[in-house]
């Protein structure tokens, strides 16, 4: 076996344990690694405020400490403006339109493997390395393929399903082969002397530091009381802003009156125009088909309909589908109806462990009757 070529690698270091171990592994593999921390948000909870408006505190310090221990150069790049324009504004606009976006995919597509990668390549780097759990393998035709992580439980290929072949060609995921638990990654960090070993995992949405997505949205979209309706259009409750809801949501509806059948009700539809939220029983969530837009292919786009599996949420299960690309649309038909599919989320298609591509869910067709979304 020939040794892997020595690459000039830019390691994105968030200040967390995964990206620190990833950078350490890349360096240990003999690559020429430089660490970079992206300053992404002007969040007062994570930034020192002041006349100079600079210096992230905890996370950038942790990332720098890790880089120093690994023994690699370290820089902070300010991408807050790009991040706000490409990720945060899009996130808010999607919710405003009644959809449920996944900002992590957006960030990978537009920031980490676009703005960051482009700058890295321009500066002479060969690849960007992150702490994602996913694997890149060279396929039988010599092309780079994105696959699920060796450990399915930790797999993060879903949020990478937006990367095209060029982006994959410059990506390095040193944690993808890890058949270890998170505790073992922490143990490895500790063994390497990385102080982030015991750092808690980050929130799902990095720019909402307290995890209060509804509060974040309410601040930007305002709150306006509106009606919660049942499927027949009867008013069954009220809410203080339709935009904070997600299709399939059950908790937090605060409907006083129980349903006639006494069964739980779920959000079926969100109409920002009328500021209404429609609720109904679980079966009404079942969809048979969806249409996705903005397809992204991790390699050659498939021709004609094909049998794949699909994943619809970051930690969702895999379901068998038939999918077909038609121009700028991706039509996905489920073998068995699935529940709680929210427009705005990504559908990622897999062929075995290989990521085929993804699209942003635009419309769904109910299994029972009528279309929603």
């Amino acid at each position, binding site marked *: 076996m020939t040794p892997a070529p020595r690459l000039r690698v830019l390691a994105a270091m968030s200040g967390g344990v995964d990206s620190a171990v990833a950078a350490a592994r890349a360096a240990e593999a003999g690559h020429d690694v*430089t660490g970079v921390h992206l*300053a992404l948000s002007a969040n007062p909870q994570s930034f020192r405020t002041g*006349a*100079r*408006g*600079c*210096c*992230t505190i905890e996370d*950038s*310090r942790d990332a*720098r400490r890790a880089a120093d221990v690994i023994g690699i*150069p370290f*820089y*902070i*790049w*300010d*991408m807050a403006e*790009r991040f706000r324009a490409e990720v945060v504004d899009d996130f808010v606009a999607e919710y405003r339109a009644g959809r449920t976006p996944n900002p992590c995919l957006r960030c990978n597509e537009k920031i980490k493997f676009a*703005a960051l990668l482009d*700058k890295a390549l*321009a*500066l*002479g780097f060969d690849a960007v390395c992150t702490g994602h759990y996913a694997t890149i393998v060279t396929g039988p035709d010599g092309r780079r393929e994105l696959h699920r992580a060796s450990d399915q439980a930790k797999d993060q290929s879903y949020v990478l399903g937006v990367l095209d072949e060029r982006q994959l060609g410059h990506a390095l995921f040193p944690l993808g082969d890890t058949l270890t638990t998170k505790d073992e990654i922490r143990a490895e960090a500790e063994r390497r002397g990385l102080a982030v070993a015991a750092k808690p995992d980050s929130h799902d949405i990095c720019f909402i530091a307290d995890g209060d997505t509804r509060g974040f949205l309410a601040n930007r979209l305002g709150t306006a009381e509106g009606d919660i309706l049942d499927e027949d259009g009867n008013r069954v409750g009220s809410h203080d802003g339709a935009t904070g809801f997600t299709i399939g949501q059950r908790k937090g509806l605060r409907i006083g009156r129980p349903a006639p059948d006494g069964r739980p009700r779920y959000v079926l539809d969100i109409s920002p125009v009328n500021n209404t939220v429609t609720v109904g029983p679980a079966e009404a969530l079942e969809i048979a088909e969806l249409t996705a837009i903005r397809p992204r292919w991790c390699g050659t786009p498939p021709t004609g309909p094909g049998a794949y599996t699909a994943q619809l949420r970051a930690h969702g299960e895999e379901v068998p589908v038939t999918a077909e690309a038609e121009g700028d649309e991706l039509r996905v038909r489920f073998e068995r109806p699935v529940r709680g599919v929210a427009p705005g989320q990504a559908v990622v298609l897999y062929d075995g462990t290989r990521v085929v591509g993804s699209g942003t869910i635009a419309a769904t067709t109910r299994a029972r009757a009528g279309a929603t979304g």
Partner: protein
Amino acid sequence: MPYLDHAATTPMLPEAIAAMTEQLGLVGNASALHAAGRRARRTVEEGRERIAAALGARPGEVVFTSGGTEADNLAVKGLYWARRDADPRRVRVLACPVEHHAVLDPVHWLADHEGAVVEWLPVDTVGRVHPDALREAIERDPDDVALVTVMWANNEIGTVQPVAELAAVAARHGIPLHSDAVQAFGQIPVDFAASGVAALTVSGHKVGGPPGIGALLLGRDWTPTPVLHGGGQERDVRSGTLDVPAVAGFAAAADLAAARREEFARDIGTLRDELIDAVRTAVPDAVLNGDPDPAGRLPANANFAFPGCEGDSLLLLLDAAGIECSTGSACTAGIAQPSHVVLATGADPDLARGTLRFSLGHTSVREDVKALAEVIGPAVERARGAGLS
């Protein structure tokens, strides 16, 4: 590894290391009355005398601090408080916009918390304050000025200020002028008495002494309100047990900085000129920031703006090529910001983002400049490809 960041910190001189390490094994609080204390006090006072002599001051005018930042804070805040307490009308602070953050931030703080009215003195395109501008600012109302602070020479672009002339303007109205001479000491003549300034900041580690020690030279007529309260060890304006080994190291370095200054300025100035030529040859459109006249800038300083480049990108590329330099003095762990100094000279903001400072020192050799000359051209070309994000 070519080290072109001496203005950030410069290697300790062997003489300073020897003087300091000799003290490290000894015990004695310089304020104590017993023999160990007397010995420590003797070391401190000898150090004080040597530092005073190196800077044209009297020993009693040397107030030891933990460094340049503390000395600047003591001068700016302390003189403001004392002057305002003596006459409540005195709330105006006349400051120069190209100051180091150790002066800028205390000035901002006084405005935010202590009712100071800050007036930024205009600077020209090389960052220089003109005595007429100061005269005009003072004469609008001499009675409400608490203090004036203008650095001796700029840390980023090396511009030397006409400090003696400015101090004379202030002195005519009995107003104290503080000058941060951290970068000037050892490079150009700094004579405290002759300059007429009320207070002057110097730092140990910029002249080959240890980090963690500096001094405020303070005329006997001035008693700033303390920033640190405690035992009152230094003229009752600064408290804290004196760091005897650091004083010894600082004194040894200060001695040599003064003794070798002329020779150093001549040799390092020649090397600096070669560096400027080399950069201009490799990157013809590089813009030299600061005074192009060697008489008006620190001999060890060169500062360029590289159009179309992000300073940070250049730093990364040069670091990878083994060249250690800096974008200026901005916060070291932070996000690249356009240089406030270069902005204050009226430069285009995009240009202010692409600045690099190359600063020479006592260990600099011609090979350092040659190494830079080889890599700066390709680095700038590559950084331009990455653009301004």
